[in-house]
């Protein structure tokens, strides 16, 4: 087995044959570390997610900490968080594809997979959130004998529509982009894997015509996915913004949520890239310069996010409306103030360090930063829900909210579900685009030849 790449990371460009081998190796070779992680992830998912949820289903949703004014709680916060994380994956990949960036090629497959699995987890949170999940299909406009339709005025219905569309589009985008790689994997594997990839590759032979169609289809989906990704989190924000609750009812919410979503999504990509690089020995493909570029993007997004946060507070403050002032007071000094201020520290202050290129190219620092940013973004989702609802209009009903162990456990379990899905994915789909990395290598080689005197 060629492990030269491990000892001399970063600089030596790989050969074409190495690319196939390296990537297919990630599919067929399974280290004990993988099995351990996988086993632990599955165990955590069962223990921390399935069992508490079953308990909640049997007993009633009252086992969570929500009460009357704070009728939404951690489940909705996590739902928004995971939808947010799903951004950037597909969005970043599509934008970079259209602008013809070369460096996306090593990472985009994992980024898209992240999108898909975050969406899956988000949908799971919808099921956890509602009181009667067994009837949740009523929100879908399906033909039925009673001629009952869902309520088309409801932002929640917009949500269902947006998320299902986004999920379908990003799954298709991911699949279309993987077809040539499935074919490569088909040719490089034997046994059950071979049969599986034969089906997945849709009989791809690599003719000129097929490549042309693929390029067409791929660009088509890339263009389609960008407005979808922007719209999906705007629509999620309308769940809140279309109400008349102080703290929800803000026109800034749609851009606020989209920026927040791209922010946390980009940070999520940095985290995933770090682990892929480290545990799949992809040092030759995922370079520190990629982290550097993502670091710049994060810096811009953090500044935008800070700006929107200031706008959000000042519009409430300038309104001079006693309900708005009460809610701002609660947010800045109430029961959730420590979370609020740590959110500011994680998402607005810490990322300012990205201004230095030493920080951006130091991968360990980037990993820590990206995790902090996502923790901050999770806090943000909480803050929006848990500091607005407790201070609604009638002071007689004001109350605080604190999550219970069931909610904490389900949160942890959902992370384990995400990791499990991702671990299954990296064993089935080549986690790096074989053909595009090769393309890039050829391109670079040609370039070097041209530059030679």
């Amino acid at each position, binding site marked *: 087995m060629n492990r030269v790449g491990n000892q001399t990371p970063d600089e030596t460009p790989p050969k074409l044959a190495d690319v196939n081998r390296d990537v297919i190796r990630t599919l067929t070779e399974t280290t004990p570390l993988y099995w351990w992680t996988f086993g632990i992830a599955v165990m955590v998912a069962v223990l921390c997610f399935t069992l508490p949820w079953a308990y909640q289903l049997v007993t009633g*949703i009252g086992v969570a900490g929500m009460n*009357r004014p704070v*009728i939404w709680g951690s489940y909705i916060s996590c739902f928004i968080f995971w939808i947010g994380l799903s951004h950037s994956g597909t969005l970043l990949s599509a934008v970079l594809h259209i602008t013809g960036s070369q460096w996306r090629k090593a990472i985009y497959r994992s980024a898209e997979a992240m999108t898909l699995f975050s969406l899956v987890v988000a949908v799971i949170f919808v099921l956890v959130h509602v009181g*009667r999940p067994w009837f949740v299909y009523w929100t879908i406009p399906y033909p039925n004998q009673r001629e*009952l*339709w869902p*309520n088309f005025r409801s932002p929640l219905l917009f949500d269902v529509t947006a998320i299902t569309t986004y999920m379908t589009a990003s799954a298709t985008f991911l699949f279309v982009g993987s077809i040539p790689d499935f074919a490569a994997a088909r040719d490089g594997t034997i046994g059950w894997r071979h049969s599986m990839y034969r089906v997945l590759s849709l009989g791809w032979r690599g003719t000129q015509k097929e490549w042309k169609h693929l390029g067409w289809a791929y660009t088509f989906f890339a263009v389609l996915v960008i407005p979808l990704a922007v719209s999906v989190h705007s629509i999620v924000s309308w769940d809140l913004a279309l109400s008349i609750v102080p703290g929800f009812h803000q026109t800034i919410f749609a851009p606020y949520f989209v920026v927040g979503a791209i922010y946390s999504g980009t940070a999520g990509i940095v985290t995933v890239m770090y682990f892929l690089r480290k545990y799949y020995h992809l040092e030759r493909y995922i370079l520190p310069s990629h982290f550097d570029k993502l670091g710049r993007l994060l810096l811009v997004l953090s500044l935008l996010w800070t700006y929107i946060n200031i706008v959000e507070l000042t519009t409430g403050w300038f309104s001079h409306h006693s309900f708005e002032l009460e809610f701002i007071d609660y947010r800045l000094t109430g029961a959730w103030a420590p979370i609020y201020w740590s959110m500011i520290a994680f998402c607005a202050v810490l990322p300012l360090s990205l201004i230095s290129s030493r920080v951006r190219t130091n991968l360990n620092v980037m990993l820590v930063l990206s995790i902090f940013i996502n923790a901050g973004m999770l806090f943000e989702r909480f803050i929006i829900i848990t500091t607005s609802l407790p201070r609604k209009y009638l002071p007689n009903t004001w*109350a605080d909210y604190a999550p219970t162990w069931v909610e904490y456990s389900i949160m942890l379990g959902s992370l384990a579900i995400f990791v499990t899905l991702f671990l299954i994915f990296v064993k089935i789909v080549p986690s790096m685009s074989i053909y595009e990395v090769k393309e890039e290598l050829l391109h670079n080689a040609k370039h070097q030849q041209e530059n030679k005197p």
Partner: protein
Amino acid sequence: MTLLQEKWRAYRTPGYYTKYDYAWRLVVDLDSCTGCGACVVACQAENNLPIVGERAFQEKRDMKWLRIERYWEGEYPDIKMRFLPMMCQHCDQAPCETVCPVAATYHNQDGLNVQVYNRCVGTRSCAAYCPYEVRYFNWFSASWEAPLEQQLNPEVSIREKGVMEKCTFCVQRIRQAKDEAKDEGRRVQEDDFTTACAQSCPSKALHFGDANDPQSAVSQLAKNPRAYHVLSELNTEPSVTYLARGKAMESAS
């Protein structure tokens, strides 16, 4: 156009019930309200509200379709207590109705904001959207201890866990009165029936009736200069009108 077609079309425009059917309204006279809580108990008995216990009460998960909010005014010793009976306001422009994805809560032809328990999937968004906090969620399935289940009202269904509920203006009584009136070929009269809360109020602070009938008590009282709506700046157009405490009562108390 047949009458049916006309009605059908009229039902799709806001304010249709001012022309057809009834417009049920409640008037709360704060001059008369003593905060005794008889209406709360009556509502509990009439509508099969579960008894949640002390712990749930402290967790803010009490079930009272009608509650008496207490507000204090001034500093001790010069302190005054104010009562504000609060129930679903049956808003004409109800924020809770637009948000329900399955249309489990909607406006009916009587101007009532109705809640269909069987259709509810429990997203709880209606409660988040309602500015009056009068929607109550069934966090657990309710149960009644041995003799208590005997006193349940057979006209009202028992709600399952995961379902939202709220004041219905005693819709079961409205239905019954309308049925009886229909059999006799007339409109529902002022004294045919009233809601459980209005029936039980010892100081007659609550008045229930049809605002489409200009002679009814609610139509008359709504003209009172003391009349106001809670949170009227939100433009929810509530069906519940409050009569503010008059100056004379202020100095007497």
